[in-house]
């Protein structure tokens, strides 16, 4: 990463109005490419004003918008070997020629009639690209797949529920803890046949370790949310898989939230870092989970080295490092027909999809996250393909404090502690970006794009964009030798659905209960969709 210094950020270099929505971004040879819900734009950064070079509209089926659980989003495109890869809401992976904007291949993977969409950003690794489905709220059966970058052919596809042969669990599977050993646990840890619509989708981030040739990804919540209907550990949901890139064979698994009761999807980013742990060099994997614990795992075998709380937690009491099991707080366990109050974190977790950023320079992890709790009532629900399979009434609210619902913190991985933290009025739903110049960037749902000091958190600069920010900052060095930073402004996502979908705040249960915590968002921002590019001076 080029070295930004802590000097002022010069000026807006380019803006582009992209229509509503959008969260993702990716840089390809100095040219950032973005997916705004469905359209991919290429800007030519070598020319002043960054004119559009091409656009690619994959024209997904409009009906797919109805089965996207938490607003219509796309978490980004990825560049590799001359192609840009991205996913469509109606379940396709597409490869586009980065120079011409022409489609190279398109592979159908998900079926919206079963409630499947694809919202994640693909991860190119060697000659493959890894993708997975969304739809944990629709009773889908979750999976991840590897496609051949050149042709789009599916090389392997592994489900996250069901028999071992579908999950690609075989002789190479060597989990660290005893509870993952046994035959067809993806069937036997569920009531009869419920694994068929048990969720466990792969809508978050995939990481790849080229030395170990392993891919890592988190698995979403089990379905339905109503946990009384599905006694058992509900494997392999709300956990993490390590798989061989070439064959998909599972190597190890760890379950963050066995028998999840709170919609704690396990899909948050897995940051691969090599560090000294208690005096020993370790190949680690750091994961801020929705359940509120910051996990440090040995990424060679799935052993939990540490699980420290980084946000207020009432739903559980800790993680037993000997067994690897999460210890639930029985007082907060949901029950059908009874309202359980003040469950913290709320369903979107202490942190949702918004990716954190690790600085090799400071050694700290910069984490955008939430401060939310919830009241939850489990209600009866039946599975009807293509409709939601949830069965809870949820009302979220601010967690402990002065009503702030978001936080941006610097975390010391080695000592499992917060170094500094900034309270924000709304959940910090944008990604973080740490630069080698000791500046960290993030955006707020009011629309501020902020730069803070990496070691103290002191605000260095801010710019008010035209809408709330839920995108990810990107930086690159231009052909003119200058460093740039870009952000897409345009509120939405689950937290911003109240604005993006014009939802009615009189019903706190709207948008799976998030509306209850976001009633004041429409007072401070409106829909948007504008790309801002800044030069660092």
């Amino acid at each position: 990463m080029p070295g930004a210094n802590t000097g002022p950020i010069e000026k807006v270099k380019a803006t582009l109005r992209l229509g509503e929505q959008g969260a993702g971004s990716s840089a390809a040879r100095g040219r950032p490419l973005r997916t705004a819900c469905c359209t991919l734009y290429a800007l030519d950064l070598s020319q002043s004003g960054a004119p559009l070079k091409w656009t690619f509209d994959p024209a997904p089926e409009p009906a797919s918008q109805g089965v996207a659980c938490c607003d219509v989003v796309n978490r980004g495109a990825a560049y590799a070997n001359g192609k840009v890869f991205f996913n469509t809401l109606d379940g396709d992976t597409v490869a586009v020629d980065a120079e011409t904007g022409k489609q190279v291949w398109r592979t159908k993977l998900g079926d919206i009639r079963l409630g499947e969409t694809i919202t994640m950003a693909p991860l190119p690794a060697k000659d493959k690209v890894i993708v997975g489905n969304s739809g944990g709220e629709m009773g889908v059966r979750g999976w991840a797949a590897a496609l051949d970058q050149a042709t789009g052919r599916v090389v392997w596809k592994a489900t996250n529920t069901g028999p071992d042969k579908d999950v690609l669990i075989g002789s190479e599977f060597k989990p660290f803890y005893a509870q993952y050993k046994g035959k067809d646990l993806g069937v036997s840890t569920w009531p009869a046949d419920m694994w068929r619509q048990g969720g466990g989708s792969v809508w978050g981030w995939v990481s790849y370790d080229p030395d170990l040739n392993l891919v890592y990804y988190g698995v979403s919540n089990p379905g339905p949310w109503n946990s009384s209907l599905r006694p058992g550990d509900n494997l392999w949901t709300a956990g993490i898989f390590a798989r061989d890139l070439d064959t998909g064979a599972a190597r190890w698994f760890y379950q963050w939230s066995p028998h999840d009761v709170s919609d704690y999807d396990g899909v948050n980013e897995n940051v691969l870092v090599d560090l000294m742990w208690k005096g020993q060099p370790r190949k680690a994997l750091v994961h801020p989970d929705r359940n509120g614990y910051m996990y440090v795992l040995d990424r060679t075998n799935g052993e939990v080295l540490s699980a420290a709380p980084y946000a207020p937690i009432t739903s559980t009491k800790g993680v037993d490092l000997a067994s690897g099991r999460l210890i639930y707080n029985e007082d907060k366990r949901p029950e059908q027909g009874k309202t359980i109050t003040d469950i913290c974190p709320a369903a979107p977790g202490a942190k949702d999809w918004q990716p954190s950023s690790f600085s090799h320079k400071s050694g700290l992890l910069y984490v955008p996250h939430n401060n939310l709790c919830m009241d939850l009532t489990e209600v009866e629900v039946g599975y009807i393909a293509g409709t939601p399979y949830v069965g809870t009434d949820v009302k979220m609210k601010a967690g402990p404090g002065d009503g702030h619902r978001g936080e941006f913190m610097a975390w010391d991985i080695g000592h499992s502690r917060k170094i500094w933290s900034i309270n924000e009025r709304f959940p910090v739903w944008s990604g973080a970006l740490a630069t080698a110049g000791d500046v960290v960037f993030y955006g707020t749902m009011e629309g501020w794009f902020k730069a803070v000091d990496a070691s103290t958190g002191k605000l260095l600069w801010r710019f008010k964009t035209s809408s709330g920010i839920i995108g990810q900052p990107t930086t690159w060095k231009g052909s003119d030798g200058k460093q740039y930073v870009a952000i897409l402004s345009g509120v939405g996502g689950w937290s911003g659905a109240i604005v993006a979908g014009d939802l009615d705040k009189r019903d706190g249960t709207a948008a799976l209960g998030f509306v209850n915590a976001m009633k004041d968002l429409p007072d401070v921002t409106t829909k948007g969709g504008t790309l801002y590019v800044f030069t660092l001076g």
Partner: protein
Amino acid sequence: MSTHRLALLFSLMAFALSACDGSDRQVKKQTPSSETAAPSSSDSEVALVPLAPGGKVPLQTASAEGARIEGDPEQIEAGKQLFMAMNCVGCHFHGGGGMGPPLMDTKWIYGSSIDNIAATIREGRPNGMPSFRGFLPDEQIWQIAAYVKTLSAGAPPPFATQ
């Protein structure tokens, strides 16, 4: 999920609705083509706009069926149970919206009359509203439509099981 559970759910619904069976059959007899010919909304003709060529208002006919069910507390209660059981609640919640638009506000994309709402449920709508034609009998579609109409009447949202 257990097919068993769904069967239970459906039998509960059938129980709740058994009182309407007679009229259901009667309606079907009156409009024998309702199963096959579109629209199956018996005698209603709906428009989605207040405009018609020639400076006129569009021709519309409210259906007798809609008029019979609208405002009837028993039918509305049956519709409310169906709104939960058919997972409408998962997309529209208790009127505030989510995957689908709010139903408790005064903005209607596809019309606010009970005939419009029944048509929405029966035919589906392009941006992700599923079509319940063939999945639900027409009688139940009318009952849900009658319930949906009450959501925008300014009343606080009713909660299913608390």
